[in-house]
């Protein structure tokens, strides 16, 4: 099973890269873009086939290593194909 972990800064944490992307988009003439936040995507190949168990395990990985919960949120997406 494949797991995708999306990690982004919490609201209120300055994201200079997101800010720069927003400015550049505006400079390129893309109007109407509000706040831009940049995050990261981590893809994991898991041996586990049970989705509930996989989610518990990936949550533990996020808490222990993948995300810094002082400043980051994470969201887990499981892919059963």
């Amino acid at each position, binding site marked *: 099973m494949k797991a995708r972990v999306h990690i982004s800064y919490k609201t209120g944490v300055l994201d200079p890269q997101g800010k*720069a992307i927003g400015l550049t988009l505006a400079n390129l003439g893309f109007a109407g873009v509000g706040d831009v936040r940049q995050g990261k995507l981590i893809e994991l190949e898991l041996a586990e086939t049970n989705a509930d168990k996989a989610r518990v395990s990936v949550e533990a990985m996020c808490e222990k290593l993948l995300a810094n919960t002082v400043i980051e949120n994470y969201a887990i997406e499981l892919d059963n194909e």
Partner: protein
Amino acid sequence: MKASVIVFPGSNCDRDIQVALANSMGGPVDMVWHGETEMAKTDLIVLPGGFSYGDYLRCGAMSARSPVMREVVARAEQGVAVLGICNGFQILLEAGLLPGALLLNAGRNFVCRDVNIRVENSQTPFTNGYEQGQVLRIPVAHHDGQYFADPDTLVELRAADRIAFRYCGVGGDEDGAAGPRDNPNGSIDDIAGIFNDRKTVLGLMPHPERAADPVHGGTDGRGLLASLVSALA
């Protein structure tokens, strides 16, 4: 006094602090590989600067989970002095020994230059050789040095005199905030270094070991090492 420098894969200021410490102590410094699970008795543990694990994932994240860190955390709890410089500061935060986080510099670029920092608490083992309010000139060299903490943590840091150093102008600007170029990374409240509540753990972004020899063009960093030698001898 016995001092130990932890070497992580990708540490690159390990030799620099080893040399500076040895000069201040007048004796050898132990180098401890990150894979070790035990450590000889020591009075000071240093987490050096560098790019441990390439700064991949997040600065300091993987080093904070390396085998030796369990021992470092245990010693810190026993009151052994722990000093984290630059990447070492990032590791201390990731390991939970200090509160907050270090984010990408506000200017988004790596920044290497001499900065002025003001000594905010000279009553600690790390700073007893400095005067309160003394302004030091020490280099920074980092990409992710913007200190961040939530408002409650900041209140606690201020109340308990846990802010060790603040970025400032040449004159120290006691009366106000640092100018835009004086704070090199956009750190909240101009914070350059913080203590734990017992003042036995210090993390800071500037590199005292790079201002420890006349050839460096300044020796303001020596005082920090000398403070430790006098406090821990």
